[in-house]
């Protein structure tokens, strides 16, 4: 069989055909399908579909060729820096950051102490307030606390006495 000459005549014939052919039908093959094709694991119909795409998409064809070459030889080595950088993408489980929840449980005694402290504060404040008020009452009332109490309850008797017409103003 003669070697393809890649002659201008044949090239022109090919280009002419290319300008007329329709785009491949169906979805572009994914990586898994393309890999299966490269390894000859597809059925005839599926392989032909892939080849339609390979002839229309140079990138896809280059990927297939590259994958075929890669599968032939041993796995190459990589630089330590590249390995370290990629390895760092996954952390050990105990180093992973865990989001703290706002409603984290606290011990029940902690809540009890907190509420008790609040209740005690209210009681103390009330007692102090009462004591202060009582002291003030006693000091203002003097020796007749009852009379002072009457003055407080019925101020008019005291008020108008002071402003009586007969009084010296």
């Amino acid at each position, binding site marked *: 069989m003669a070697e393809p000459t890649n002659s201008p005549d044949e090239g022109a*014939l090919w280009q*002419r055909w290319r300008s007329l052919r329709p785009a491949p039908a169906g979805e572009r093959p994914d990586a898994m*399908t393309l*890999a299966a094709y490269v390894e000859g694991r597809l059925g005839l119909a599926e392989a032909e579909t892939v080849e339609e795409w390979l002839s229309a998409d140079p990138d896809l064809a280059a990927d297939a060729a590259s994958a075929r070459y*890669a599968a032939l030889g041993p796995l190459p080595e*990589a630089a330590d820096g590249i390995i370290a950088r990629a390895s760092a993408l996954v952390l050990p489980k105990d180093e992973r950051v865990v989001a703290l929840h706002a409603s984290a449980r606290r011990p029940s005694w902690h809540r009890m102490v907190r509420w008790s402290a609040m209740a005690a504060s209210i009681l103390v404040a009330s007692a102090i307030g009462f004591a202060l008020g009582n002291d003030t009452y006693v000091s203002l009332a003097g020796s007749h606390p009852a009379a002072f109490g009457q003055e407080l309850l019925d101020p008019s008797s005291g008020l108008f006495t002071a402003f009586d017409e007969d009084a010296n103003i």
Partner: protein
Amino acid sequence: MAQAIDLAALSRGDKAAWDAFVRRYAGLVTAAVRPLARESSDAEDLVQEVFVRLCKDGFRLLKTYDPGRAGLSTWLTIVARSTARDSLRRRQLPVTPLDAVPETFLATGGAPPEKLRLPEGLLSPRQKLVLTMLYDRDMEVAEIAAALGIDPQTVRSTHHKAMLKLRSHFATEEQ
């Protein structure tokens, strides 16, 4: 000694499995993306992007790999190249100014569009692929044979039959 990769542990995010996977395949990924990179520093960044893509979203992409359909090296090479091209497109590499392109490259061809129709299945997919590699990518017969995993003689035979079909078809159309 080759270390088997525990895919189940890898998909769970096991650190030891991930480190073993990286040590084993980082070289393969580097070799896959290097032809696409403009500089060696670009190649390193592209390798990292491939591994990021493999482990992100709970190792979603890695979980799509099916060992029953193809080998991991084959699949990984294809994923690596695809990821690298996507990354380069996103970076929007500078384009060549129009003035720097020779005029012959800009020629659109004077021939009017053909009104001929191609019969369905004139060329088989294999024939189309061989002709694409020969004429569009300027590949040698030996290269095509290696790329397709077939015998060089088969490449020549495929080419010959395809050419016969094309000559016959266009000769008939022109009569």
